């Protein structure tokens, strides 16, 4: 069996929404280069809707595919819905990830949350802080 599903390979070979948004309303960056994964997600928001989203990722095939899939899943969606996106949903949309690559989907979820938090902070929007726990960089989450 191949390492990755066809869907992972498709999103890795043809990643959607690659790039930067110079006038982004929110930017989220998670991971660190030492561990070999950094995801940076840019969002544009209008009337509570994520109208555009782009990403840049330094990481393995599944990190790039997770970024691509996560941006697809939140594009055009209300912020409230984007906040509900879980790493599991990203992985499932990719037809699964190998167990030791699940942290890539976790990074994608965290990067989106970080971008939304940045948008809230920049615009002085009140929010429930418990919705945005600090990503713990020392702890790698591996879910089966």
């Amino acid at each position, binding site marked *: 069996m191949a390492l990755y599903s066809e869907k992972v*390979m498709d999103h*890795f*070979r043809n*990643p959607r929404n*690659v*790039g*930067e948004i110079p006038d982004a309303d929110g930017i989220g*960056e998670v991971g660190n*280069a*030492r*561990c*070999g*994964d*950094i*995801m*940076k997600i840019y969002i544009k928001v209008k009337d509570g809707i994520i109208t555009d989203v782009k*990403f*840049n*990722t*330094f*990481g*393995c*095939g*599944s*990190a*790039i595919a997770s970024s691509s899939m996560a941006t697809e899943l939140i594009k055009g969606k209300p912020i409230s819905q984007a906040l509900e996106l879980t790493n599991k949903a990203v992985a499932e949309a990719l037809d699964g990830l190998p167990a*030791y*690559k699940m942290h890539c989907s976790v990074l994608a979820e965290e990067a989106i949350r970080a971008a939304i938090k940045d948008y809230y902070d920049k615009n002085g929007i009140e929010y429930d802080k418990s919705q945005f726990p600090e990503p713990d960089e020392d702890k*790698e989450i591996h879910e089966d």
Partner: protein
Amino acid sequence: MSRTAIDAMLPYLDKIYGNPSSLHSVGQRAKEALEAARADVAACLGAKPNEIYFTSCGSESDNQAIRSAAHVGAQKGKKHIISTTFEHHAVLHTLERLKREEGFEVTLLDVHSNGVVTADEVKAAIRPDTCLVTIMYANNEIGTVQPIREIGAVCREAKVTFHTDAVQAVGHIPVNVADDNIDMLSLSAHKFHGPKGTGVLYCRNGVRLIPFIDGGAQERNKRAGTENIAEIVAMAAALKESCAHMEENAAKLVKMRDRIIAALTQIPHSKLNGDMAHHLPGTINMCFEGIEGEGLLLLLDDKGICASSGSACTSGSLDPSHVLLAIGLPHEVAHGSLRLSLSEYNTEEDADRIIAAVPEVVEYLRNMSPVWKEMERGELKHIL
């Protein structure tokens, strides 16, 4: 596998399917083939046939050599072993277990930024209780060749057993156990176009070897288990062929290797790893800043290029290659490594393909890398 190795092995899967331990004629023909293979392997290494033990792989040979020397040492109260930080895991993990479970002390010598340890450093590390020095002939990831003859001489003088994992060297560069002062040596068949799952442990006459698989009397009571005749015969044929053509193969590979290196080092913020003055003919290891190795491998695979990397993602662990960290590369650089292993079956067209594909793929991945973009904007300093 080489055609020579396949042709050599086929009769032993079919017509001569005997067990060398059997007295009947088919068994005895297998026995003759086994001993002929032993003599061939011995001749290629400058050893005597009765110093050659067939094993299932290089890792098994490493394990047996190290554990055997350790146990012999422990019986004399000597429980100190010297090795290097960038050995193969078959060596490092064995040493780790001896340390953890049997109280051995292990000194791992630094291999410096060039990936070469010196005989003087080995000499300085030898203590009265040192029972074994185990240092690889050539590194499997970065291809640097160690001064084995000098290290062997130092060990011989200090009366310390010297083992070398020569898996990457045998069949590619001249290896002679007598000239190189080697007491024990491990090799693996698939590194010179032989079959996978078969290897050799050379153990010099006079150096005690303890068996780790008990059972029948095979391999002169040092390694029980019915011999894998077909693969052993194929290994010997492959080794003979590699040794016979070593010079011409090396000349061809060095030319191809250096052409690829000259082209790929043109990629900005890249680095060639390992001292090229002491190097295997066919190994190339480079790092490209701002990218992660796995993506590089997958995209090269799409272009028909099978490469490997020392990135964490390709190893399934969180840390990048211990070899690249051992030569002092920072984690973030080690994640972006590429290893190409050339063989005499590669062509100049293959080299052209590599030279065209790698810069393209590196640029593509850099264009979506936040790390690279920050470096290009001057927000993050380039390391390479």
